[in-house]
């Protein structure tokens, strides 16, 4: 197969890709920021553990949301089926967790 690589994608598309990349970089910066807060909250011991556990769990959920919607493009159109699959997976995951926790802690 002939190798036909060239950098000439039409310039409108190229500009769009560039703007998308900018959003991705902001997403990355936010994710690093959330990670730093989570580690900082635990290392500093500034909060009682009653609060710090839900707090870092919340940060993890937000960070994973960024990962799904930006890095994995779930925010873009044509991602209805992926959303169904992932939310279906998350639903079953929550049931699994609830079931295991129920068995162990009650």
């Amino acid at each position, binding site marked *: 197969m002939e190798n036909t690589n060239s950098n000439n994608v039409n310039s409108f598309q190229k500009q769009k890709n560039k703007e998308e990349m900018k959003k991705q970089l902001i997403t990355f910066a936010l994710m690093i920021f959330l990670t730093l807060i989570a580690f900082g909250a635990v290392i500093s011991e500034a909060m009682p553990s009653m609060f710090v556990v839900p707090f870092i769990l919340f940060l993890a959920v937000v960070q994973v949301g960024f990962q799904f919607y930006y890095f994995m493009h779930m925010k873009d159109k044509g991602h209805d089926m992926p959303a169904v699959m992932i939310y279906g997976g998350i639903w079953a*995951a929550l049931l699994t967790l609830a079931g295991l926790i129920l068995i162990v802690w009650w």
Partner: protein
Amino acid sequence: MSHDHSLKPETMPSEPEKATLEGKNKFLGLWFFLGGETVLFASLFGTYLALRNSTAGGPSGEEIFGLELVFIMTMLLLTSSLTSVYAMYHMKNNNYKKMQLWLGITGLLGLGFLSLEIYEFVHYITDYEFTFRSSAFGSAFYTLVGFHGGHVLFGLCWLLTLMIRNAKRGLNLYNAPKFYVFSLYWHFIDVVWVFIFTVVYLMGKVG
């Protein structure tokens, strides 16, 4: 595959990964797989949460976990997630060489992560005699974290195979979905790690 799917600038679709039916199917198939993986990891997380205090007199997480190492590992994997975004950016601009370069960087960061994880496990086993058999906590810990590490290893093999097999082909509508689907898988590994560093290490330190 049919004969000429190679990409020319004037016919380059804006989403080469979904321009063919095969590509669309790969895309949906991988998301379906990730939905299943979510459940798989949830059951491992559930087991870990249930057993994390069952140390049977052996070392507890609070005693052995070192947050410095975990922080470096987190940064490596998070950055490798970004570099694979860069690779897909260059794919959409039909710049095959730069895509390969960024995929290579992604692989190196993943390898760095995996090396640190192996170091971590060796450290636990030799310095603390904390093994898979030490306690229920040990079994749950190594199963959960090791399964994630196994996913990283699988991802690295997948990436290497893709890069070598397609090295001389250039980008085309046949292999663009393969690269894209790999990047989705790689992001998902990072998703799982976010919960591992939170639930296993940070919550382990909080006690």
